[in-house]
């Protein structure tokens, strides 16, 4: 039987002590697919991602990850403060045992593509702005060319220009390398712009209450499309409910 690259989550539940965080989550993510999870904050999105990536032990239900490689971009940059940007970007390559010269070349290529300058690559994280740190973290996840990418609100701390720029790079990556992405955001427009499928995770306990598919190819989604689609989603009762909850919380 041929090995199918996919992430399959079945009946996944999780609790921290007495806090019921996730209940009975089911979904699949195939190769080249981008699935985003939207929902109120504190709803268990990060926990779901950590369970899928094996960073947290699964207690109830099943997660089977049949992708060969994955990378995780966290909500905060999590750079090593004692390494310069170049080494931070190259971290995953080093962990795979790649030699110094080659990993530095790849890291500086991608760093420059992500809008860092040569000088920035030699700087320690403390010398970088928040946006640049985020780019470094993003480059570190992408440079290893993972088959599956876990993104935990990677753009939430960025200004609009940079956000759009990194989104564009991501769309390109998906198109060229057939990277699969499981993507968390609380920005509905971002979800509409980037994903094939949007899963709505309601809080307390976190469960998937609705899935929306978007069939228009990513490259053809202009602003008008994104606005229109988002507006349409916002009329949906489940979304109204869940997002109003998050506003009041």
């Amino acid at each position, binding site marked *: 039987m041929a090995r199918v690259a996919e992430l399959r989550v079945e009946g996944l539940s999780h609790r921290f002590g007495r806090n019921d965080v996730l209940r009975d989550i089911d979904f699949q993510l195939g190769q080249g697919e981008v699935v985003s999870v939207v929902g109120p904050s504190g709803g268990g999105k990060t926990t779901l991602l950590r369970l899928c990536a094996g960073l947290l032990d699964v207690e109830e239900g099943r997660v089977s990850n049949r992708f060969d490689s994955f990378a*995780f971009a*966290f909500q905060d940059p999590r750079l090593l403060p*004692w390494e310069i940007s170049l080494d931070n970007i190259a*971290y995953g390559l080093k962990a795979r045992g790649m030699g110094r010269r080659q990993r530095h070349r790849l890291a500086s290529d991608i760093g420059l593509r992500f809008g860092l300058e040569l000088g920035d690559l030699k700087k320690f994280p403390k010398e970088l702005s928040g946006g640049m740190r985020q780019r470094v973290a993003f480059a570190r996840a992408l440079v290893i060319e993972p088959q599956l990418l876990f993104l935990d609100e990677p753009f939430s701390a960025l200004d609009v220009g940079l956000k759009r720029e990194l989104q564009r790079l991501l769309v390109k990556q998906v198109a060229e390398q057939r990277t699969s992405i499981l993507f968390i955001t609380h920005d509905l427009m971002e979800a509409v712009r980037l994903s094939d499928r949007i899963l709505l995770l309601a809080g307390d306990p976190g469960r998937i209450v609705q899935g929306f598919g978007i069939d228009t190819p990513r490259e053809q989604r202009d602003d008008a499309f994104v606005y229109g689609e988002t507006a349409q989603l916002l009329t949906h009762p489940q979304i109204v409910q869940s997002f109003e909850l998050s506003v009041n919380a």
Partner: protein
Amino acid sequence: MNAFLSILRGFPRYLWTGWGAVASILLFVALWELGHQRYGDLVLPAPLETLQRVGQMLSSQGIREDLLITLKRAIWGFLICVGIGSVLGLAAGLFVTASVMSRPIVSVLMGMPPIAWIVLAMIWFGMGDLTVVFTVVVASLPIVFVGALQGTRTLEGHLKEMAQSFRTPLPMMFTDLYLPHVFSYLFPAWISALGMSWKIVVMAELLSTSDGLGAALAVARTQLDTTGALALVVMLVGSLLLIEYLLMEPIKREVEQWRE
């Protein structure tokens, strides 16, 4: 190797920043001179006279040997304490039980006055090198131990999770995560331990040996030779300052560039 070159290259600029320190030392010397003019030779000899005495001492065979003996004891004690303290602290930091259990022991060690160690060491080891080195080691050990322990226990869970997400192999966990982090706690502890060693070594020598600067200090006391005593103190403090500011501080600057 790169770090070494970089330290050398930064050295002239580093020395240049030392003028402020020189100014404050000169101010101190001026106050000293003032005290001398007020209270006279017996209580506080003139700085110039003291410095001349230092010069004489350094050119005399006997005191030079004493100085070397003292430095050797202090450095041995320091090195042994750094070795044992760092390893034990790291090991204790890796296990929750060990770090919890070691806390009261460290408190006891920290609270124990060095003079008590000297007395015990004299009973156990008699008069000589071993007594001095032992006292230096036990008195500075807790400082290094606590530094290493804190270093291992404070590594952020977030960074560990990041490392885990990239499937970092164990050796790389050490070289890229644990060591740099721990070192930033360990190094300041080493510097404190160095200062401690310098103080303890003289005290231990004064009480328990017949050679070394401490013993020379004891002789100066019996002869009421205030100038001699002060000259010895100047040599001790001077040697510590030289090591600290010409060796340790530049290293610290180089390895801790990444710090806020």
